[in-house]
């Protein structure tokens, strides 16, 4: 499944953000986003993770992360 993992923005430098999800940090481009992004926001990344695809509200991101944690715990991932 092409599941997206919501990632929390932990730093921004220019149009590149450092994002974190499940303890892993990575860098992603913010060039394709229409919304302003701030540290603490959640984004979902496109395939390969090079570009952030969308900003998601915190409650939706937390809900998705809780589900994905369940997927991990259940051994589906």
């Amino acid at each position, binding site marked *: 499944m092409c599941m*997206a993992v919501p990632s929390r923005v932990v730093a921004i430098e220019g149009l590149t953000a450092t994002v974190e999800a499940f303890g892993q940090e990575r860098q992603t*481009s913010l*060039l394709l*986003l229409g919304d302003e992004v701030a540290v603490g926001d959640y984004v979902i990344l*496109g395939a390969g993770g090079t570009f952030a695809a969308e900003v998601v509200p915190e409650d*939706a991101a937390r809900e998705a992360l809780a589900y994905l944690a369940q997927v*991990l715990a259940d051994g589906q*991932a």
Partner: protein
Amino acid sequence: MFPEARLDVTLRVEAGRVAGVNIHSNRLVQASKLFAGRRPDEVTHLLPTLFALCGTAQVLAGLAAMERASGISTSSSQTPARQMLLLAETVTEHGLGLARDWPPLVGAEPDLAAARRLKLAMAAVRPALYPAGDWTRPGGGEVRPSLDALGKAVNEARAAVADILSADAEAVLADPDSFHLWHRSGNRPAARLIDEIMAPDLATFGRGPFLPMPEQGPAGLDARLDGDRDGAYLARPDSHGRVFETGPLARMSWHPAVTAQMGAFGAGLLARMVARLAELASSLQEMDQLVHALSDAPAPAACLVDGAGLGLVEAARGLLAHRVELESGRVKRYQILAPTEWNFHPEGPLARGLMGAPAGPELERRATLLALALDPCVACRVTVENADA
């Protein structure tokens, strides 16, 4: 850490030909079974965040499955509104492919300005149809279309695509001469890539037996999914032993520009690339027409009841199927069958197209192009193992 889904394609070369194709996927094809126990509206609320590339199609397939399970017929206003949402996602995904993914294949930079312009234009469609934001509601949300905003969104998307191609998409595909002039011009990376692929050995690359997905999906799909207790079918679907190709080529083989390339070069790399262009152009046209079919409709009072239902949606990458069983207001069972499981099946169109392909220094690149033409929804890596070496 959450593992990143990917596809690994390994080609085994013997006696100068591809003698074996191994496709390994770590995609989470059974993760949706953890929707069990949730309320249906919780699931449709979760789907767009969980699926970055095809969130709209996922929600629409889920809604169709739930409504079918409950015997709900949606109003005539929901159908064009939902089709409009789906087309906006198809235009976005195909356009991003052309602007972001194709240029590096000819050594150019991605056209991010045009990609962003297209993405933002199509992002305006959802609020212009469902201003209350309730489009994920089973039974349908409140449709209150802003025809002005929708018209602007489609025009802006068309202009962004024209930027990506350096010409209007419909004009490029209008007749063989226009197509030839466009790709020979090499004005944009997309034209240069198509021009390169026009070389006969590349145009025909990946040509295998063409088994297009039937328009209504495979016969007996509901029963196959119902009987799939261990998830084996979700990972490797078939229909009476046949593994269909799904996506733009299967849907667009009627288009004159696609028919022309298929006639000349078969269902290979070039036909698949042109089918994607044709679907981009035709989706924009369909959006134009749909604007006139939209009308206001209140959110109906829909009540989900116990039952099982299959929902099918033609997503950008191909047929997406959701099957749901509802019991006492909760999801009892949930299955998702995505197009990538057909196209990247070990006996599917990618494998069939690569089997027997001539070896050579270009094999890895050609196989990568073919994988990209079939457009997986996760990263895909091709490796060549040469037994002759």
